[in-house]
């Protein structure tokens, strides 16, 4: 098989508050034989907040990011659900509206760029499932995670709106019963925990404006996983990770119950199963101690 190669849009979080996510992405890519070309020119995706302030500007900036992936003639992979949402949404809107695309390209032309619509945009989770396959991953597992009950936390912006999200990968994900992350847990040899909150919201995007709401949602999510007898949680989104890992104090206060579980990035889980050296997975950067490795 030809070596898999993607243009990597890291987003901002992996470069700042979740360094462990960046490290584990690179470690896992190496194990899986994937070459990642980092889009160092990319700007922030706007995280849905720039979109609130200035929708057109956010389209222009996201189109610019995709244009750089197109220059490499590669699929763009994201490692943040919200990056995925905003980038895929931009692509969808431009690919389906010639006028809007022309307006955006008029701006991009000022800096010598053009958005063509030739690169696919997909989350790393779906890229590996689609392009490597769960069977192959299973074969590559050297340390099966068989002693663990693992609670998948999908994060809204990978599964909703499903019509948009399902444009980005091969197998349609059911927003009411998503399976990709469960499947990955099983491929890694773990036992997947089923609980009501696995496809619910962590509250991240209202953390500053509506702290009580946000903390309640976080608390409910961790509580759901704990009640499902999970040893730890796993998520494909660094923003969900930040909420679940660093905000346990506020979350416990909001729901009136002590809650905390180690929360791994999906790359860290995969890295453990594939036998990556633990120092490359960055577990020491977690606030809720990863006490089982």
């Amino acid at each position: 098989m030809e070596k898999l190669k993607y243009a990597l849009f890291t987003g901002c979080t992996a470069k700042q508050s979740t360094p462990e996510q960046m490290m584990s992405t690179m470690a896992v890519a190496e194990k899986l034989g994937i070459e990642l070309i980092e889009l160092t020119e990319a700007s922030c995706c706007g995280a849905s907040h720039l979109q609130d302030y200035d929708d057109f500007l956010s389209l222009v900036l996201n189109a610019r990011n995709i244009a750089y992936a197109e220059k490499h003639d590669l699929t763009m992979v994201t490692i943040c659900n919200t990056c995925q949402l905003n980038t895929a949404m931009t692509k969808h809107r431009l690919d389906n509206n010639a006028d809007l695309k022309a307006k955006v390209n008029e701006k991009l032309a000022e800096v010598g760029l053009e958005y063509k619509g030739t690169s696919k945009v997909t989350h790393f989770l779906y890229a590996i499932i689609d392009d490597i396959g769960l069977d192959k991953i299973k074969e590559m597992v050297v340390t099966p995670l068989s002693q663990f009950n693992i609670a998948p936390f999908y994060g809204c912006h990978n599964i909703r709106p499903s019509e948009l999200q399902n444009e980005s990968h091969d197998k349609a994900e059911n927003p009411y019963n998503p399976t990709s992350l469960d499947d990955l847990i099983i491929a890694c040899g773990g036992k997947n925990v089923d609980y009501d909150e696995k496809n619910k919201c962590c509250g991240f995007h209202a953390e500053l404006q509506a702290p009580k709401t946000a903390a309640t949602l976080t608390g409910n999510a961790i509580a759901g996983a704990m009640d499902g007898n999970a040893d730890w949680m796993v998520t494909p989104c660094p923003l969900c990770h930040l909420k679940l890992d660093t905000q346990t104090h506020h979350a416990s206060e909001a729901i009136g119950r002590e809650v905390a579980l180690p929360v791994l990035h999906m790359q860290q889980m995969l890295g453990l199963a594939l036998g990556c050296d633990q120092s490359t997975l960055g577990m020491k950067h977690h606030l809720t101690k990863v006490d089982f490795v």
Partner: protein
Amino acid sequence: MNLKLELTKRKKELMSTHKITTQKVNFKVFRFNADEDYLPYYEDYSMDVTSEEVVLDILNRIKWDHDGSFSYRRSCRHGICGACAIKVNGRSTLACKESMTTMIEYFGNEMTIEPLSTKRAIKDMIIDKGDFWKKHEAATPYVVDEIDETPELENLLSPAEADALNDADLCIQCGACHYACPVVEINEDFMGPAAFAAAYRFEADVRDGDESRLTDVNQMGSGVWDCVKCFECAEVCPKDVNPIEKIGQLHNMLFQSGKAESNVATRHAVGFEKSIKKNGVLDEGGLVLYSEMAGIVKHVPVALKMFSKGKIVPPWGITKSQNLDEIQKLVKSSTTAKF
């Protein structure tokens, strides 16, 4: 061959390829009568469901074939009146529109049928929707205008002006989104997605001259800023109103109108532009500081812990985007909002 014969033949062909399939589905159905029952309970029904049926057919069959006292609302059975929304396996569903085939695809052959909100149940599927209507009303869901009592012409919208409503006018007030919204569930002041879609629908109407609606729906604690952007409302809406998109447009309108007050929510949105202009990427710490101002103190304990774990990059440690000049040029030339 004459046309009529041709059509009859086509129809026969179509009928022969269109297969109606049947499968067994087990239903757990929420039962409660507020006048008599202390607690709700669930009744089990097993039925052969055909691929032709919608969820409302199942409700009808429960009533007609099993228990005449089973109660639910429906009127038009055409997805117009908005009366029949319920929950199937926790998912808001317009009963007369949703096909059982889709439900089986989503949930398999075990289904729980509940009212939109169990805590508001009056009898079986019937709920007290009072909170929904109160919040809807708070969005001033009508055109506010000086009325000419003896008009000579109708006050019509051009096609382009009607397009600007962006399908928000398709809302049938079924409440599916409202009771699917996780914030409505935990904050009783939150106006909810349908009220916001209504607010957008009338704000976007060129005939409207209301002065206060936009600020009403932007209140902290009850307004658009408390939305967590989970897209549940967009996922469930049977009319594709896409309430979360309208919420985004209300944010945009606020900034465009110049009515945006400086508060943690507006600064948080604007802060992204500032940060992108400076670094291309986000300065996460700087964003929180700019948004919260003095409120930053409440983040200090967690921030210190994060710092000790190497999770906070100081402003001078941030790797700026390459070709930052391009980004800065685009921010300058493409910005449409003001603050």
